[in-house]
């Protein structure tokens, strides 16, 4: 055993090493548009039979979404209205923000700036404030601020990257608000990577026509998230942690008027009445759609989609998922965790078990992923001891191309990750396979982050329309800032005129009836709140007697 690899993998690594210089000199050419389309239609899960199906109930009845999403929407609401006394209000606020990640925190800050008093804001979150995909984003955030760039070019990249399926007005907001967001970050004290003259170090990414990726080393999301969270803490914005929302509350006028929170530790519920509610619950990687491992955090279970659908808000673009080509496939403890696209950007090439290249390293994410899937399906992948297929990403090429020490300085976080398992990525390749990364669609919003239902706003990964059917890199950190800000501002405006009527959970009874009418007999409930990862043996012996 050299490094952390078992012997049979080392045999394959020897082939990789032997062909390394040859492979660097003879790269695979990029695909034509037609070849790309063919690759996608044959090997991307978005095009595979059996991954998606038609939804039978609700406002989006007849639309095709991923099975795992439809399963949740066709499950029974988790809350029994009879168990909740809505006459006793535990928290009476102007603005309820569901989710303590990037979008929720930014929304709170801007709602406060727009006049909502601190004491009248409440952030509720499933885990801790800041436990979110926002914290995990590595690469960076896009904004067109260099002289050779423009928000119009950024718009074109967003729209084309989304296969021209985005809501144009949302793509416009994303591009036009971006420079203002970076400026806001500067004023908050976010430490961006800069040149000596103060200009940002800006890199490119797949699908962007200009270099406009602003980064904070390979901890961009963490630096932004911990900074805005510190700001919220200084302002003492109330945060209720470990209290996921089970369902939204409506009023007799058909508006969303708050939510029922569930204390994970004491099992109590809390009734929250609010004039406006912002849904900022993030994504759904932990649903493991199409059985993919995921880069997402523990709480990313798509709860927001479910509770929004229960009150009648519509969803979109959930017939697609973003799989990132290079999730880790070995060793087992890090399966699904991201190995940044920057690794290929710096010159590493994906190779099969024979050490042969099979795809241009920088195809768009969906095409690159499909190519890796094909290679494994056709038997040229390496199968790990736990049965996971994978392909080599030949990282030592980076040191040959850019000089020794490049990996240590440019990919410090990645080196740290592999070093823990005895793998030196400067000397040996890493094993990768596509991983579930991002929820492209979600609850449809407009430029004011309004949903179909009055009183309910949405921002961040839970929302739909900004990225259409495919998000470009660097646009998700931007998304939660741009639309978190907008949600805070427009919710604050809405609050000034809003009047809440009598609280009700009747919509849940109606939803149950709708399920019955459609002939669906749910054996599951939703939202699911947290994924189930307990060992099979432990679950099979579990008794519900205490």
């Amino acid at each position: 055993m050299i490094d952390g690899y078992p012997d049979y993998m080392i045999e394959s690594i020897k082939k990789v090493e032997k062909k390394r210089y040859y492979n660097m000199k003879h790269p695979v050419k990029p695909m034509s548009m037609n070849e790309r389309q063919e690759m996608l239609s044959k090997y991307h899960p978005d095009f595979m039979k059996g991954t998606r199906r038609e939804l039978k109930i609700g406002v989006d009845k007849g639309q095709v979404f991923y099975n795992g999403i439809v399963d949740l929407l066709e499950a029974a609401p988790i809350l029994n209205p009879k168990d909740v006394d809505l006459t006793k209000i535990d928290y009476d606020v102007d603005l309820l923000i569901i989710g303590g990640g990037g979008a929720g925190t930014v929304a709170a800050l801007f709602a406060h700036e727009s006049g909502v008093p601190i004491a009248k804001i409440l952030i509720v979150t499933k885990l801790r404030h800041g436990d979110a995909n926002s914290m995990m984003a590595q690469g960076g955030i896009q904004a067109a601020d260099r002289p050779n760039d423009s928000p119009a070019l950024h718009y074109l990249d967003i729209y084309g990257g989304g296969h021209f399926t985005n809501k144009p007005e949302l793509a416009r907001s994303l591009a036009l608000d971006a420079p203002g967001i970076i400026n806001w970050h500067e004023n908050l004290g976010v430490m961006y990577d800069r040149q000596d003259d103060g200009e940002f170090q800006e890199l490119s990414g797949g699908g962007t026509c200009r270099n406009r990726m602003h980064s904070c080393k390979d901890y961009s999301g963490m630096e932004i998230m911990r900074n805005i969270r510190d700001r919220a803490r200084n302002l003492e914005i109330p945060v209720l942690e470990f209290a996921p929302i089970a369902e939204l509350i409506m009023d007799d006028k058909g508006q969303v008027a708050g939510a029922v929170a569930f204390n994970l530790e004491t099992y109590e519920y809390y009734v929250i009445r609010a004039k406006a509610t912002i849904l900022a619950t993030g994504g759904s990687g932990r649903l493991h759609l199409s059985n993919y491992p995921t880069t997402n955090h523990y709480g990313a279970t798509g709860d927001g989609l479910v509770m929004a659908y229960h009150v009648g808000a519509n969803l979109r673009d959930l017939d697609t998922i973003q799989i990132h080509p290079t999730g880790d496939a070995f060793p087992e403890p890090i399966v699904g965790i991201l190995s940044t696209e920057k690794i290929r950007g710096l010159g590493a090439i994906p190779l099969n078990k024979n050490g042969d290249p099979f795809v241009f390293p920088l195809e768009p994410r969906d095409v690159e992923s499909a190519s890796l899937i094909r290679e494994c399906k056709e038997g040229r992948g390496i199968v790990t001891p736990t049965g996971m297929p994978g392909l080599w990403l030949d990282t030592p090429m980076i040191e040959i191309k850019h000089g020794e020490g490049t990996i240590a300085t440019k990919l410090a976080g990645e080196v740290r990750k592999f070093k823990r398992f005895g793998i030196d990525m400067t000397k040996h390749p890493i094993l990768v396979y596509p991983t579930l990364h991002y929820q492209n669609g979600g609850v449809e919003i407009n430029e004011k982050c309004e949903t179909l239902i009055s009183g309910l706003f949405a921002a961040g990964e839970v929302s739909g329309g900004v990225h259409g059917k495919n998000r470009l890199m660097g646009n998700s950190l931007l998304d939660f800032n741009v639309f978190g800000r907008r949600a805070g501002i427009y919710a604050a405006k809405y609050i000034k005129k809003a009047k809440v009527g009598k609280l009700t959970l009747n919509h849940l009874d109606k939803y149950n009836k709708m399920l019955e009418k459609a002939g669906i007999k749910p054996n599951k409930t939703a939202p699911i709140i947290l994924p189930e990862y307990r060992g099979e043996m432990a679950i099979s012996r579990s008794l519900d007697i205490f």
Partner: protein
Amino acid sequence: MGESKQVLIENKKSNDQKIKAGEVEVFIMGKSYKVPAGLTIMKALEYAGYRFIRGCGCRAGFCGACSTVYRIEDEQKLGFDLACQKVVEDKMYLVQLPFVPAAKAEYDIEKIEPTDTTLIEMYPEIARCVSCNTCTKSCPQDIETMKYIQMAVRGDIERCAELSFDCIQCGLCAMRCPADIKHYHLAQLARILRGKYLDPKSKNLAKRLKEVDQRKFDDEIAKLMKMSKKDIMELYKKRKIEAEEEGDLGGD
């Protein structure tokens, strides 16, 4: 040490089943479980039947929710790591640290100034640092924690911010410090002061902001929004890609 040693021995006795090949024995807060070798501490606890509410966040080493203290049986030293990153070892005694009580200074970033004494005024306890280096040894990110505290004592905000940059705010340093320093909160302040006041600002950005305010791009974007799908697809295909000329790509 005497007392904990006794407890360890007691547990050893109570465990009568033999370990199979490919298994290791771990003690979750003193209680014995057998789990497959090669799992992370986090996955081992789940395998044993624990369902996390606390002590689990991103599961990828970024959020600091799962700081864990451990000691391998009969070993002198305590170990510190993240449950989502550290693989279990045989006879490992585990306790998770789901919350760190460490008060953060409150400040208005618009009103404070980055002087030599700002950090020590906000966190005066850093003056009590005895350079024992326990903080550094307990950091799962291998940050030179004590060194950045020394920089803070000296008033070197810039270096303090730089050295602490990879901090995931798990709080292990603060739990171990004999001087009761709240390292990770102090480091957050240092980075904010540097980002806001010390790093030079971008002139390109300032210029672009003015242009956006003057609505310079509105017409051009409006035109793109009105284009037929066919026309905008053509335009999209014809874009010149800056990176193709330079070969320098980034992204996540």
